C-alpha cells in the first residue's frame, strides 16, 4: 500500500528533523570543535580558494585544522552548500574569521543541508532499493525494508545528530545495489563510483562490485559481447573518475597530494576506541609501541585481503544476487575488523547489506543493527545524544515488535537457541550500556567503558563475519 510507504518515508524524515534539534559533535569545544566545524570549514575552504588548492597546505588552508580529507565529490558538495551559505549570510564561510561559528541560524542552515541530502538522495535511494529487492527476490518485504532503512537509529544519529553526510554515500551505494539487482550494470557502476568519490570508505564495498561485474562480463556468450560489456563498465567508471578528478589531474604531484590526503597513513591504526580487531588486540599487545606505522598498514592490508578474498572469489565463480549481498556484508565486516584507520562510524557501511539480508535472516539482522548502534554509544555519549539514542532505539524496537503492516507472520517467530543467544546478548548490551552511563570509570582507566563496549561489539562483529562465511560456503 502506497500510503504506508509514504508514512515510512515521512516518518523517517520526521525523526531526522527532530534529532536535528539536538546538539552536534564538538559543540562549544574550542579550539578544534568537531565534525560539524569540519564540514563548515570545508565550505569555507572550497568557496574561497581555487580548486587546485583545496587539498594543499597554504597560508589560507591550514591542513592541520580540519583539512579536506574526503574525495572530490565531497569537496564539490561542500562548495555547493558553501555557495548557498554565502548567499544567506556571508559570515558563515568567510575565510579565517568564520572558524567555530556557532549561531542558532547557522545550525539551522547546516541541519537543513543534511535534511536536503536526506530528501534528495537518501530517501529516493531507499525506496529504490526496497522496491528492487522485492522485484528480484519476491519476498514481499518492501515495507519492512523501507521502514528499517528509514528509521535505523545509527544513521540518523550520526548524520542528523553527530553531523555527517553518510546519507549521501549510503544513498549512492543503495542506488548502486538497487541497479545491480535490476541488472542495470552501468548505472550500478556509475552510482557506485559516485559513492566511492563521496567517501573513500566505500572501498569496503568495492571488491564485491568488482567481482560481480567482472563475473557478469565473463559470463557473456561471445568474446565480442565480453569486450563490449567490459568496455562499457570500464568507461563508465573511468569517465566518472576523470570528470570528478579533472582539476587535480594536471600533474602527478597534485593527484598524489589528494591521494595522500585521502589515505593518511600517518594517523595510526586507530584513533578513538573502535570495535575492530586491532583495537581489541591492543589491550594485550600495544601495537603502536611495537610496530611502525607503515609496517602496521601492510599488516592491515594483508589481513584484510586474506579475510575478504575467499568470499569475493566465491562470488566471482558462483555469481548470484543473493551471494552478492552476502559478500557485501562479509567484505564490509572484514574491512571494518581488519583495515587501517577505522572509525566507529564506519560500521554504518555494514548497515545496508545487513538490512538487505533482513529478507532472509530477520532476527539475526535486527540483532546486528541494534548491536551496531550499541558499538557507537561512546561517541554518541560524547555528543550529548544519549537520550535521543535511547528513545530512537525504543521506537526502532517497538515498531518491529508491532510490525503492524502486512507481515509474514512466521518470520518474527524466533528459533529457540538463536532466540536465546540473541536475548542474552541484548541483555548484556543493555546492562553494559546503562552501567557505562551510571558508573563513573575509575581514575586509572578513564576509557574503560568505551573499551569494554568496543571489545563486546568486536566479538559480535567477528561472530557475524564467521556466520556470514558459514552461510556463504554451506
Amino acid at each position, binding site marked *: *500500500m502506497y*500510503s*504506508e510507504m*509514504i*508514512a515510512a518515508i*515521512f*516518518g523517517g*524524515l*520526521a*525523526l*531526522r*528533523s*527532530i*534529532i*536535528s*534539534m*539536538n546538539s552536534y559533535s564538538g559543540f562549544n569545544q574550542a579550539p578544534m570543535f568537531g565534525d560539524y566545524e569540519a564540514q563548515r570549514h570545508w565550505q569555507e575552504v572550497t568557496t574561497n580558494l581555487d580548486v587546485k588548492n583545496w587539498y594543499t597546505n597554504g597560508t589560507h588552508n591550514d591542513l592541520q585544522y580540519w583539512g579536506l580529507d574526503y574525495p572530490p565529490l565531497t569537496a564539490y558538495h561542500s562548495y555547493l552548500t558553501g555557495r548557498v551559505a554565502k548567499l544567506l549570510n556571508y559570515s558563515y564561510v568567510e575565510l579565517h574569521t568564520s572558524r567555530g561559528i556557532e549561531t542558532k*541560524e547557522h545550525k*539551522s542552515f547546516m*541541519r*537543513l543541508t543534511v*535534511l536536503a541530502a536526506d530528501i534528495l538522495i537518501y530517501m529516493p535511494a531507499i525506496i529504490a532499493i526496497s522496491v528492487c529487492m522485492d522485484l528480484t527476490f519476491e519476498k514481499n518485504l518492501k515495507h519492512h525494508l523501507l521502514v528499517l532503512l528509514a528509521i535505523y537509529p545509527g544513521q540518523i544519529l550520526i548524520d542528523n545528530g553527530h553531523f555527517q553526510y553518510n546519507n549521501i554515500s549510503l544513498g549512492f551505494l543503495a542506488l548502486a545495489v538497487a541497479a545491480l539487482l535490476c541488472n542495470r550494470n552501468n548505472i550500478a557502476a556509475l552510482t557506485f563510483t559516485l559513492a566511492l568519490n563521496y567517501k573513500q570508505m566505500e572501498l569496503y564495498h568495492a571488491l564485491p562490485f568488482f567481482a560481480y561485474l567482472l563475473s557478469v562480463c565473463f559470463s557473456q556468450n561471445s568474446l565480442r559481447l565480453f569486450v563490449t560489456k567490459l568496455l562499457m563498465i570500464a568507461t563508465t567508471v573511468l569517465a566518472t573518475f576523470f570528470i570528478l578528478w579533472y582539476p587535480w589531474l594536471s600533474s602527478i604531484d597534485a593527484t598524489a597530494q589528494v591521494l595522500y590526503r585521502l589515505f593518511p597513513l600517518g594517523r595510526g591504526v586507530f584513533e578513538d576506541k573502535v570495535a575492530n580487531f586491532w583495537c581489541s588486540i591492543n589491550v594485550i599487545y600495544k601495537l603502536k609501541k611495537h610496530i611502525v606505522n607503515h609496517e602496521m598498514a601492510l599488516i592491515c592490508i594483508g589481513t584484510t585481503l586474506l579475510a575478504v578474498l575467499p568470499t569475493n572469489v566465491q562470488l566471482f565463480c558462483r555469481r548470484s544476487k543473493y551471494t552478492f549481498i552476502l559478500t557485501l556484508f562479509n567484505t564490509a565486516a572484514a574491512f571494518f575488523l581488519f583495515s587501517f584507520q577505522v572509525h566507529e562510524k564506519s560500521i554504518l557501511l555494514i548497515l545496508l547489506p545487513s538490512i538487505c539480508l533482513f529478507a532472509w535472516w530477520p532476527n539475526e539482522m535486527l540483532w546486528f543493527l541494534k548491536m551496531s548502534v550499541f558499538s557507537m554509544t561512546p561517541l554518541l555519549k560524547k555528543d550529548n545524544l544519549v*537520550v*535521543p539514542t535511547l*528513545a*530512537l532505539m*525504543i*521506537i526502532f524496537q*517497538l*515498531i518491529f*515488535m*508491532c510490525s*503492524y503492516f502486512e507481515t509474514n507472520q512466521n518470520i518474527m517467530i524466533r528459533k529457540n537457541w538463536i532466540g536465546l543467544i540473541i536475548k542474552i546478548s541484548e541483555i548484556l548490551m543493555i546492562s553494559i550500556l546503562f552501567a557505562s552511563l551510571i558508573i563513573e570509570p575509575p581514575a586509572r582507566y578513564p576509557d574503560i567503558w568505551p573499551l569494554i563496549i568496543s571489545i563486546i561489539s568486536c566479538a559480535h562483529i567477528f561472530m557475524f563475519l564467521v556466520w556470514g562465511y558459514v552461510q556463504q560456503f554451506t
Partner: protein
Amino acid sequence: MRGYFWQLVGISCAIKVLLLPAYYSTDFEVHRNWLAITHSLPLNRWYLDATSEWTLDYPPFFAYFEWLLSQVAKYVDPNMLIVQNLNYASVRTVHFQRISVIIMDLIYMLGVRCCMAALGIVPSTQKHIAGCMLLFLNVGLIFVDHIHFQYNGFLFGILLLSISALLRQRYLWSAFAFAVLLNFKHIFLYMAPAFGVYLLKFYCLAQGNFGQNTLRLLAVGLVPFVLSFGPFWHQLPQLMSRLFPFKRGLTHAYWAPNIWALYNAADKVAVVALKRTTESEATSTTSGLVQEVQHIVLPTITPSITFALTFLFMLPILIKLYMTRSREQARLLFMRAVVLCSCSSFMFGWHVHEKAILMCLIPLCLLALLDRRDARFAYILAVAGYYSLFPLLFEVDLLVPRYSLYMTYMAMMYGQLERVYKCKPNFHLLEWIYFLGFITIPIYEHIVSRLLGLHSLFPFMPLLLTSVYSGLGVLYFYVRYYIYAMDLKWPSFGKRRVTQIKSSATKRKRKTK
C-alpha cells in the same frame, strides 16, 4: 493478530521524549508563571497577581494542578518558582515541564483505552490498533502539547473517560468527570450541551423518578464546582473576568480557520474590489497583536451575534439527539453531537483559537472507527484541521518536522482506515483536488514569495492563505457532516431551512414507530 496497546504507548512516549529540546512558545512561560504563582502566593492572590502579563486564566482545578506540580518542581529547580523570574527557562525547568506533560498524557491513554472498551472495540483487532495509532500518535496533540507546549492531553483524557462512562451508562460518573473537566479548562463548555441533552433524556427522563434523578445529577455535577470555586467565593467576579475576557477581538491574531476567517477575508477582498478608501487601516486584522477588528465593508460582528449563531447551529443536532428513541442509536449520535457542538462553537465562536479544532478532531478519531462514512468525514477535517495548526510552529527548525509529521500522520491515517474498512475511503475528485491544493501554500510560503520578494511586502499572506484555505475545508466538513448526522441527503438539502430539518427528522421518527 496481537494487540499493540503497550507498544504504541512506548512509541508515543519515545517520540515525545525526542521532542524535549524542541522550540516552545510563550505558553511555556505561561505555565511556568502559574507554577510560580500557585507555589509562592497565598490562595487569595492567585487570580489577582499580575506580575507577569500571562495571568492565571484557567479555572481553579488547573491552578490546583499547577500547585501540585510545583510541589515536585521545588526539588528540580526552585528558581522556576519565583514569580519575578520572568522568562526563566533553565534546562531543568524545560525538562521538568515537558516531562510533566508526557506523564500526564498517561491519563489520556487511559481515557482512550476506556473509551475503546466502552465502544465495544475488542483489543487486538485492526480497529483497536488503528484507534490507538490515531489517538496516541495524534499529530495535533504532538504539535500543541509537545512542541508548542500545553496540557491538552490529560484534559482530553478526562473527556474520554467521561464519554466512556456515559457510553457504559454510568451517568453520574460521566457527569462528575465532565464537571471536573470544566473546572480544569472551561473551553469544554462548548461540548456541554451534548452532554446535558443526553443526560437529560437518558438519565433524568428515562429512568422513572425524574425529580430524584435530576437532583442526584445536579448534586454530583456541582461537587467539583464547589470544590474548585469554593475557596475563591469572595472574589468570584474577579475570577470570572479572568476566565472570560471579552476585551479580545472577534478573531485571534492568527485567524482560526472558521467562518470569521472567511468573513474577514471577504471583507478584505471587498475593500480591494470596491476600492473603498480606508482611513482605519491602522488595525490590520493579521498584524499579530490581539486587538479589535474593524470590518470596513461588511458589518462588524459583536459577541452577542456569535453567541446567537453558535447556539442556533447547535440546536438541530441537540433536538435530534433528544428525539432519538433507542439507546444504541443515541450513543453514536451523542458522539456526533459532541463533534458538531464543538465544531459549531469553533465555526461561529468569539475569539476562537486554532487549537480548539482538536476538540472536533479527537472525538472524530473514535468515530472514524465506527462507521465508514464518519471515517471519510474525519479524514477531510483531519487534512484541513491539522494543517491549520502549522502557524503555531513557525520556527525555521520546526518547518521540516511540521510537514513531515503531518504527512506521516495523514498517510498513516489513510492506511489505517483502508485497513479497517478493507477498501479505499473513496474521496470525490474535488475533494482530492482540495487535499492536493494544500501543497501550494508551502510552495508559495517558502519559494514563490521569497523569489518574488513578497514575504516582506505581505508578511501575513501565508497565514491568511492557511486559515482561509483550511477554513474552506472545515466549513465543507461542517456542512456535510451536519447533514450526514441529521440523516439528510446532501444535494437535496441546499434550499431547506433549519426548521425543516427538525420536521423531517421528526417525520422519519414517526415512520420508524
